[in-house]
């Protein structure tokens, strides 16, 4: 029995646009949004009357005054009258879930063209910003113990290493591969730094064991927009749309100390299984993989929980060279958050843009051969929110 739920109206990513990740000191977050939208809309054959949905994340989540009505701000600036508009936030999973909301609205016949946009600063935090970021930790049962975001993710890495023998060298192999891909992307933030070796990663400063500096994503600023439309409209805009063929979503714990397991990403396993089921595909059908890599250990754990190898074999998989350019499991082909850049509140967008570009055959020097299907897995919070997308050349 095929479990595939065919989506009506062939929802697809019709076009993508992203600012080069970098530092934009002269631009506020709102200015970054304006830059993203004005540059994208100047390129795309769209008028306000063509757009009937807008999904954006709140602005300045790391600051003291996040703006939680961004859809109203930009609905106004763009002169939109929409059937679907919302400021939604699930950390790094926000954009994946926006694409899913947009695709379902299109499949339901309610919307035809939904803009999913975001921009983010990655502020050098003052004490006020640090207070605000600390909201992601339990105020009584985590915060007093001095946790950091790297340490919270390191808790997963440590347990995975203890249970499966995963090594620091295997973690480093993820960072090394990310840099190798970044060197093929004209806009990757770390491109100018050249290639890195496993030794370079292991010799960089310890941040929170087992993570060294080069096991951690690189903070920067940026933003972008993804246009999700009916297949019919997408084919008018793009010679090869990226059809949204499978989707999965799962939400597990909120606070990291409440997770069910530290050696498994439960949400990845559940969202991934749903996405494969809805696409009627198996991991072997995937040609390009994009996995949120805030820290080097996460693609290892997520590759296992998505079914690309057996549990515990992710370390050996990433160290085998298969994820490098030219390998048969191209992973984070834009350079990942590790080397392309972690663009603050916009960080879950780059990997969807890349998955779409690969499927659209527009990825330039980093184009994977015969990229018929791409899987994009994003998570947010402390591994709380999960989105898996399967993009395909065929609806």
């Amino acid at each position, binding site marked *: 029995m095929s479990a595939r739920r065919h989506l009506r109206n062939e929802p697809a990513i019709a076009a993508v646009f992203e600012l080069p990740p970098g530092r934009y000191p002269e631009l506020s977050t709102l200015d970054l949004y304006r830059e993203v939208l004005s540059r994208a809309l100047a390129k795309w054959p769209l008028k306000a009357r063509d757009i009937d949905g807008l999904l954006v994340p709140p602005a300045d989540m790391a600051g003291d005054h996040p703006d939680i009505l961004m859809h109203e701000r930009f609905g106004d600036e763009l002169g939109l009258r929409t059937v679907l508009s919302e400021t939604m936030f699930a950390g790094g999973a926000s954009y994946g879930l926006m694409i899913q909301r947009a695709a379902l609205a299109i499949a339901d016949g309610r919307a035809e063209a939904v803009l999913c946009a975001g921009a983010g600063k990655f502020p050098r935090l003052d004490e006020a910003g640090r207070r605000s970021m600390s909201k992601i930790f339990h105020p009584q049962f985590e915060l*007093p113990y001095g946790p950091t975001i790297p340490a919270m993710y390191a808790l997963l890495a440590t347990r995975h290493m203890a249970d499966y023998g995963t090594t620091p060298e295997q973690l480093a192999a993820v960072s090394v591969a990310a840099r190798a891909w970044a060197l093929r992307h004209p806009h990757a933030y770390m491109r100018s730094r050249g290639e890195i070796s496993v030794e370079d990663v292991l010799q960089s*400063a310890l941040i929170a064991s087992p993570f060294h500096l080069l096991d951690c994503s690189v903070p920067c600023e940026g933003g972008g927009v993804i246009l999700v439309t009916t297949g019919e409209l997408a084919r008018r805009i793009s010679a090869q749309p990226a059809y949204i063929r499978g989707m999965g979503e799962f939400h597990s714990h909120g606070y990291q100390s409440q997770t069910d397991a530290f050696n498994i990403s439960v949400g990845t396993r559940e969202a991934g299984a749903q996405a494969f089921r809805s696409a009627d595909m198996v991991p072997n059908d995937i040609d390009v993989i994009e996995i949120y890599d805030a820290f080097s250990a996460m693609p290892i754990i997520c590759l296992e929980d998505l079914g690309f190898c057996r549990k515990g074999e992710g370390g050996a998989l990433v160290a085998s060279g298969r994820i490098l350019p030219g390998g048969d499991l191209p992973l984070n082909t834009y350079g990942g958050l590790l080397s392309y850049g972690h663009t603050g509140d916009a960080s879950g967008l780059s990997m969807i843009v890349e998955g779409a570009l690969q499927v659209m055959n527009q990825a330039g020097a980093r184009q994977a051969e015969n990229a018929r299907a791409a899987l994009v897995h994003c998570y947010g919070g402390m591994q709380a929110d999960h989105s898996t997308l399967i993009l395909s050349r065929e609806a």
Partner: protein
Amino acid sequence: MTEKPLPAISAASAPYWEAAANGKLLLQYCAACARYLFYPRSWCPHCYGGALEWRPASGRGAVHTYSVVHAAPCVGFEADAPYVVAVIDLQEGPRMMANIIGCAPETVRVGLPVEVAFEKRGAISLPQFRPVAA
């Protein structure tokens, strides 16, 4: 945040912090589910029953996982770095976060047997864990 943060105590957790001030670790227990809970809250997250009892915990456990923090999150923790943030498997079943104190950070391992110790911080007493004396 130039000092270490103090917990914002809620109605549901007040007995936990009162016991800690007296050097005791208390856990909530759901009789309907026959299981201990952590963290303290107003209902059992398994059966939604509100009849939770407070029971004294053994204070014994083992390190489930940990990280040695070298880059401190704020000024208050800078003098302590490197320090250990860990998740403890309590003998009663639930897990809780704590620092591992009273030993060199590099001696901490997954599975290390630990026991509760209390750190005075301002007006409160914070449950921490240290290696069980051999």
